[in-house]
């Protein structure tokens, strides 16, 4: 079986930052592998190590810069990668769920995987919807917020746990082909070994333009238009203790005593 993992390079915002128009100024952004995708990659690599999967391919929508992040996934055991990018995407504003769905769909159709794993959400735009939308577009089955996966090769069924709110998990059987969105905690993502990092250098990252995928620029037209971005007005009426560590700790200790929780 072939497993395709959607891998996103997400931006993290520094503690102090400035907003330029409807974007955080580039100087304050740091890029990293999306936390949830890290678990998805690990799950796919484990499926390969345990037998059911023959090949693990990653797919990323991102500029050349994101190859650094893609190499991390390759170093952890993915076999090769596809990277979708285009000048038209460079100029596009927000990539909404529909756009990502259509771009990823073309790659899935080309790769023809049995199982697609994606993160529950991306740490930056946090739509949390692309995996399920993609499944619907492909006519695949799906499961959102999966924190346990047991693949049954005889029946070609994924027995999964979906993590609901409040410490309850739903047990669900999902026929393949399917898209599962992977929740953190499903496994322990490995660190890339030195050997893995070396091997990753020689693995293929195939760039694909819209043309390559048989798509036209219409695919990135979006009904979602970001009209403003701002730091949320702090509703904070917190009393902030001032001073060095010993002073602030002293004031905090006083509050704890005052509230009667510590002596």
């Amino acid at each position, binding site marked *: 079986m072939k497993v395709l993992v959607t891998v996103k390079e997400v931006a993290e*915002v520094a*503690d*102090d930052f400035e907003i330029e128009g409807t974007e955080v100024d580039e100087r304050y952004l740091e890029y990293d592998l999306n936390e949830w995708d890290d678990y998805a990659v690990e799950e796919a690599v484990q499926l390969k190590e345990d037998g059911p999967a023959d090949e693990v391919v990653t797919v990323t929508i991102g500029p050349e810069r994101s190859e650094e992040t893609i190499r991390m996934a390759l170093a952890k055991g993915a076999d090769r990668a596809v990277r979708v990018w285009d000048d038209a995407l460079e100029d596009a504003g*927000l990539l*909404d*769920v*529909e756009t990502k769905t259509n771009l990823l769909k073309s790659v899935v159709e080309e790769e023809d995987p049995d199982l697609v794993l994606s993160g*529950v959400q991306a740490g930056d*735009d*946090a739509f*949390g*919807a692309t995996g*399920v*939308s993609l*499944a*619907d577009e492909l006519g695949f*089955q*799906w*499961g*959102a*917020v999966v924190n346990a996966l047991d693949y049954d090769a005889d029946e070609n069924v994924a027995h999964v*746990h*979906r993590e609901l*709110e*409040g*410490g*309850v998990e*739903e*047990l*669900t059987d*999902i026929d393949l082909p399917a898209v599962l969105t992977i929740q*953190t*905690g499903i496994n322990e993502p490995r660190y890339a070994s030195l050997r893995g990092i070396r091997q990753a250098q020689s693995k293929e990252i195939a760039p694909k333009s819209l043309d390559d995928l048989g798509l036209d620029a219409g695919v990135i037209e*979006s*009904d*979602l*238009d970001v009209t403003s971005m*701002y*730091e*949320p007005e*702090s*509703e*904070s009426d*917190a*009393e*902030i*203790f001032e001073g060095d*560590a*010993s002073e*602030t*700790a002293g004031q*905090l*200790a006083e*509050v*704890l005593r005052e*509230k*009667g*929780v*510590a*002596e």
Partner: protein
Amino acid sequence: MSDVLAVTEHRRGELRDVSFEVITAGRQLADATGGDLHLAVVGGDTEAFADSLNREGVDAIHTVSVGEEFNHDVYAQAVEALHAEVDPEVLLTPNSVNGLDYAPAVANSLDLPLATDAVDLDYDDGLTVTREMYGSKVETTIEVGGDQQAVTIRGAEWPAAEGVGDAEIAEFEADIDTDAGSTVTGFEEVGGGDVDISEADFIVSIGRGIEEEENLDLIRDLVEATDATLASSRPIVDNGWLPKNRQVGQSGKVVTPTVYLAIGISGAVQHVAGMKGADNIIAVNTDPNAPIFDIADYGIVGDLFEVVPELIEQFE
């Protein structure tokens, strides 16, 4: 055509709080669009659910009696059929784990632009959605175009609808294939274990700011010195450093202590869902803009590795 269709949610025989919040959000929107508010109730004891959901401001309740529990294939088909029937301008669903298991599929099938996890909605000629990015560090407003839209709303952002309504309640007959490829086989409770943090009066909770498992000893020393109960945010549990029963949040425990001391925790919405009911929230964090300070009563902007040892000294 400017009605609103809102989908409710239940689990194991009970309506979830967000079902009443989605009524408030839906009514607010329907007032602005000048339309009616329709509710969808799918599965379970639809009659009893419809009675409870008949709150002020609801115009119509459509019940779809298929299955006991949530199943995304059933929900997607039911909501799509109802959407065709009601033809609303905006489709609202909860941004819950289950909401995210069918709303994106419905939006895709019906070709509706989708905005998830809305914290505010505005309507003036068109729909504007407010949502957060970068772990709540920034907020954006997004104009959602098209003739019809789909929005999932964050829980606990709108008050629960109250009062008694006089909605028209009717069974909606939808042609639903119940054998569509996914089957819910049961539920499992997780957690349990040695302590029940939801009973604790003083919680010291640690987040990713602790960096390494070894550093947890520092927090354990504080817990011992102050006789507190140790809890954590999700990454600590994901790493296997603490058992699941110590996790506070949406997918963990809800706690209501007298004091919740959050150390090295950013205050992500899913964490806050579990601890915002604490009488006093105190945060220790190096980042003055961390969202946790928005809900804190007291705070230290500082390095936990400097503050915590000093704090321990205060109690030794």
